């Protein structure tokens, strides 16, 4: 049956790499120069949160053997990480204002969700493309 193909490339996934590039652009260019207004200042980092960290978290799961495949992230995996980030940033951190610098803005929840949905739509389209290629390959062989 041979070596299985790896549809999802984890840290080398285009969504993860794009987020990794966008993050410092926002941090060192857009925010200091007040480009993009309230969105880049308050929410772009939150939108990038899931597209950036879901591949990293899934890679950690893959390395330790909890995730046994390299399929694109499922809706459940994105949702689970969304809940984890809400729990830490909106429930845990706001209780320790002396230790953590966090505003506890409820709109952040929407920003995390927006990032997760955008990444999820891309991953689902990529998964569909992979499935089509696989079917074409199987039909050809």
């Amino acid at each position: 049956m041979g070596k299985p193909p790896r549809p999802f490339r984890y840290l080398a996934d285009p969504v993860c790499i794009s987020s990794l590039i966008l993050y410092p652009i926002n941090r060192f260019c857009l925010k200091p120069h007040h480009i993009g207004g309230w969105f880049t200042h308050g929410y772009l980092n939150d939108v990038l949160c899931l597209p950036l960290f879901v591949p990293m978290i899934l890679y950690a799961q893959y390395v330790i053997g909890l995730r046994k495949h390299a399929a694109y992230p499922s809706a459940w995996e994105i949702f689970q990480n969304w809940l984890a980030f809400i729990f830490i940033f909106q429930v845990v951190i706001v209780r320790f204002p002396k230790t953590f610098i966090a505003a506890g803005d409820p709109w952040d929840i929407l920003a995390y969700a927006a990032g997760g949905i955008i990444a999820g739509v891309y991953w689902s389209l990529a998964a569909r493309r992979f499935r089509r290629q696989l079917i074409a390959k199987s039909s050809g062989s």
Partner: protein
Amino acid sequence: MYCRHCYAKLDAEFHHCPRCGYGFDAADPSSCLARPFPDKWRIIKYIFFTTIISVVAAFIVSTFQMAGASGH
């Protein structure tokens, strides 16, 4: 017939899982599963450990933010 690795439904006509791409042999029952889910404890264990990893990762991100480096 379901994938041993990602539990996606398999089509006997093709030789690879449509979701994760792992190969299987429809004639070999050991290469696939008869039902789409692992046992209950494995599901619980999976949800527990993956949630722990997600929460720890989110906590690491928040610690990074605490250092004032992210401008979150």
